[in-house]
């Protein structure tokens, strides 16, 4: 049926399609031209016509990507809901600042972002890679071609679909919906589906771009690796690869940290790291990339470890695609807290093909060159830096593999079922599972990261080494015992980790400031210091994480089982707070004081008051209010999506979020007004305080022509003292009509009306109502995170170390240009 639709804006979509195809064609052209350039014997880049063509192609492809971005942004910002992407991921009510988050929410947007960073990094590589340009850029352009296919949305026959375009029209996305039978369907589609409330957070505006920059950056060392294997040249490749590898470590590290910060600040799984598959997926390439960086340094210094280095860079990049496969295809299904938008079969096979290409190309080359890779025949000494650095890298790789194997359970469980007949499920307690293994990795790596710096390449002065280590470890032992006793760290492996991280902090500080001295050279020591701080922070914050919202109300379930006892403890962590009824949590007296909403924000804020008093004197020591918020009954759903609110201290955080609220539509008012006849100074007693009628107050209106308007001043006291005052008003107009205006005191749930003056008794009649606090409640959970700031500080220091090393390597070149080719 050919309907002429009314009210559509087809222009932007057609422009967008054009850009997608331009992106694909230009990238393909660039790949081909760069490939031809590699075949040519001409070394000088600019006189090689293929290079010039290829560069033009690459620049055009980068502009096409920016064009796609701009077009899609136009569509989203102008609420053109005839496009599926805008309709699915945005709505009119969405604040401007979250428009960018709409990009990342969808599948195509993430691929686009990824391609965008590739193109930017590719442009930098284009102008810096010198004689390696043609080979490195062939690989980068080829990957861009692959990414472009993800956005094509071409059909071959009815069943084979290549990619999916972000410019799909809504009516094509849902062909069967009857509304699209009507030519004027646009007049029915007033608003979009909206952005997932979980993503309406400032972290979601900045976290995905940084994370994808990190993912994209792994392509560059990989491309250099392939370029090196291609010609069998393993010297020209080191410098740039090292710089890009450091950049990648910094970018991906920052991305992972921001993910943790987002989880901590706006998700409610109570922490910054939960070993969730999506988190693991970004951690695994980072770990392998760091291992690769270290073996590359070994190769630079000693000409050893080349095969391992090449292998590690290839694996780093492969795991980026594997992570995409795990997190984008829904193959993890039941095992992650993250929502996956399944693109179905087509993306699944598409990514398998891509992984196949990456593996085939890189391992094919590696195997072909394997025999001829330069190797050292002499063994390294056990007191050399390279020996222990190499071991550290192997440990990192094994650690990454363990994380990956456990994360991939749903991928390999069909195989396990075929062998053993059992359907393997993820560990019951994944955090414990990963922690119990990775704590040993952390111990080894922490130890090596500090001690190895005291060794020299090739051979070291062993007695000096042991002298320094002995002094440093005795200091560390004293300090860590002090911390361990103070913080009651009583599990052996965590006690060891505590010692190791304290030792590493001291050792790296000493190395940086007493041995290296020059700030330019401190990169390694600083990033290792950051690692040590991170380990210490993770240890203290998670080992001493404390739930303060233990439930003391209600019935206790019989969970007598020994194995599950821990779980029970873990899970009785929700506390019911009736409005204005304080409950003791840890050192605090906590009360819920009501909720509030504002027209400009779809969230409901819950006011939760924390008070800490001196146990002996009862004196108030501190008092603060937290406003955990939640989307209550968000569009199309019942229930709530909560965001936590935290009180930050230098040494701890108090972390609070709402897990259940009374459905606002079901709130009832079970109380009625009661009348009281009051003289001046009389009081009315309430459940949790009293009200005193102190005096009259003249209202703003003048008394004339029988118009009287007067207020009663009511002072309200609760158990702690004066809680506020109310001034209900009473007025008579023209000697006849009576009015009264009630006043409320929300914090006490009080309502007062001034209904009559009784001149003969010299009294007034006041009606007072106090809402039953049981009519309003929230269920919340509160956690105490000690030393969370040490975690953030550690990661920031580590990233700073990466950047410092990178800058040092970039500037070094000017001083000593290399003559070798």
């Amino acid at each position: 049926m050919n309907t002429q639709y009314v009210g559509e804006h087809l222009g932007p979509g057609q422009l967008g399609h054009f850009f997608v195809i331009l992106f694909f064609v230009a990238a393909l052209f660039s790949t081909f031209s760069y490939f031809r350039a590699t075949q040519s014997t001409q070394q000088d880049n600019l006189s090689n016509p293929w290079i010039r063509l290829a560069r033009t192609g690459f620049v055009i492809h980068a502009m096409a990507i920016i064009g796609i971005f701009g077009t899609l942004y136009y569509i989203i910002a102008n609420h053109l809901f005839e496009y599926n992407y805008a309709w699915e991921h945005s709505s009119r009510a969405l604040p401007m600042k979250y428009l960018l988050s709409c990009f990342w929410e969808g599948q195509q947007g993430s691929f686009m972002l990824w391609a965008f960073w590739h193109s930017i990094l590719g442009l930098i590589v284009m102008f810096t890679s010198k004689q390696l340009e043609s080979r490195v850029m062939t690989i980068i352009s080829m990957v861009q071609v692959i990414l472009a296919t993800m956005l094509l949305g071409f059909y071959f026959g009815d069943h084979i679909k290549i990619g999916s375009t972000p410019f799909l029209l809504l009516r094509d996305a849902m062909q069967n919906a009857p509304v699209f039978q009507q030519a004027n369907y646009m007049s029915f589609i007033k608003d979009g589906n909206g952005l997932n409330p979980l993503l309406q957070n400032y972290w979601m505006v900045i976290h995905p771009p940084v994370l994808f920059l990190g993912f994209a950056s792994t392509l560059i060392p990989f491309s250099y690796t392939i370029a090196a294997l291609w010609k069998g040249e393993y010297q020209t490749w080191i410098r740039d690869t090292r710089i890009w590898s450091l950049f990648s470590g910094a970018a991906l590290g920052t991305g992972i940290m921001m993910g943790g910060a987002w989880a901590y600040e706006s998700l409610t799984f109570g922490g910054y790291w939960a070993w969730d598959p999506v988190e693991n997926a970004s951690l695994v390439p980072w770990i392998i990339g760091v291992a690769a960086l270290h073996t590359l340094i070994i190769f630079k210094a000693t000409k050893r470890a080349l095969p391992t280095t090449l292998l590690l860079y290839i694996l780093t990049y492969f795991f980026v695609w594997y992570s995409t496969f795990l997190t984008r295809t829904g193959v993890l299904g039941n095992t992650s807290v993250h929502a996956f938008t399944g693109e179905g079969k087509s993306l699944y096979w598409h990514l398998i093909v891509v992984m196949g290409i990456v593996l085939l190309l890189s391992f094919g080359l590696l195997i072909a060159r394997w025999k001829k890779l330069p190797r050292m025949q002499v063994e390294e000494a056990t007191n050399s830096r390279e020996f222990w650095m190499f071991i550290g890298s192997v440990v990192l790789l094994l650690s990454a593999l363990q994380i990956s194997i456990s994360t991939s359970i749903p991928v390999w469980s069909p195989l396990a079922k075929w062998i053993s007949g059992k359907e393997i499920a993820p560990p019951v307690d994944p955090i414990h599972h990963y922690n119990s293994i990775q704590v040993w990795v952390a111990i080894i790596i922490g130890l090596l990261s500090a001690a190895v710096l005291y060794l020299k390449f090739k051979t070291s002065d062993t007695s000096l080494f042991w002298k320094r280590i002995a002094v440093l470890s005795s200091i560390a032992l004293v300090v860590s015992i002090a911390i361990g006793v103070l913080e009651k760290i009583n599990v052996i492996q965590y006690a060891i980790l505590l010692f190791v991280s304290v030792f590493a902090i001291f050792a790296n500080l000493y190395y940086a400031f007493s041995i290296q001295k020059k700030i330019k050279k401190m990169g390694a020591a600083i990033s290792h210091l950051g690692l040590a701080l991170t380990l210490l922070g993770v240890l203290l914050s998670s080992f001493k994480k404390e739930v303060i919202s233990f439930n003391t109300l209600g019935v206790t379930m019989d969970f007598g089982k020994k194995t599950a006892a821990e779980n029970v403890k873990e899970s009785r962590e929700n506390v019911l707070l009736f409005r204005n009824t304080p409950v003791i949590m840890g050192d605090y007296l906590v009360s819920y004081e009501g909720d509030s909403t504002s027209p400009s924000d779809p969230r409901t804020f819950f006011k939760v008051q924390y008070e800490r008093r001196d146990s002996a004197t009862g004196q108030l020591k501190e008092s603060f209010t937290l406003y955990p918020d939640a989307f209550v009954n968000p569009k199309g759903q019942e229930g709530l999506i909560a965001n936590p609110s935290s009180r930050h201290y230098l040494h701890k955080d108090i972390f609070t979020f709402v897990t259940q609220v009374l459905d606002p539509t079901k709130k009832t008012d079970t109380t009625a007004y009661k009348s009281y006849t009051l003289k001046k100074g009389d009081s009315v007693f309430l459940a949790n305080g009293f009200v005193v009628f102190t005096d009259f107050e003249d209202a703003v209106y003048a008394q004339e022509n029988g118009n009287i308007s007067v207020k009663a001043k009511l002072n309200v006291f609760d158990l702690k003292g004066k809680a506020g005052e109310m001034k209900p008003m009473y007025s008579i107009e023209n000697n006849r009509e009576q009015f009264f205006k009630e006043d409320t005191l929300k914090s006490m749930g009080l309502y007062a009306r001034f209904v009559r003056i009784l001149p003969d008794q010299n009294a007034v009649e006041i009606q007072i109502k106090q809402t039953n606090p049981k009519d309003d409640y929230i269920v919340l959970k509160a956690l105490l995170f000690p030393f969370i700031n040490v975690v953030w500080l550690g990661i920031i220091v580590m990233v700073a170390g990466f950047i410092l090393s990178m800058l040092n390597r970039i500037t070094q070149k000017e001083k000593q240009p290399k003559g070798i080719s």
Partner: protein
Amino acid sequence: MKRTHIVILVLVAVAVCVIVSMFGDFSTYETFSSAAKEPGKQYHVIGFLEKDKTMEYDPVKDPNHFSFYVKDKAGEVSKVIFNGAKPTDIEKSEQIVMTGYIDNGTFKCSKIQMKCPSKYKKDQVALGNAG
């Protein structure tokens, strides 16, 4: 053999041992009846919410007690007690993955994961974690 090779072999051997021992950590997907064979041991059970039967959650009585009925993949219906707050949108869940154990004929779970058929999102996974 070189020293590094020996060390790598040792490390790999350790890693293999760790990975093999990891299998003890892994849980399995069971049905109510197969989970009942070992009461108290934690399993994953996949099932579907029985929407006709009563769901009980009264935070005023106990904010950590939510009970409902689930039909597992073998078709058996069992009462489930979740010791946490009632997860958002469980009524709309298409499939539920529960982690817990059988005790006195009821399945007591500490973790719920739901797949919700959103009209627009094909696979939306929501999670209710105990506590």
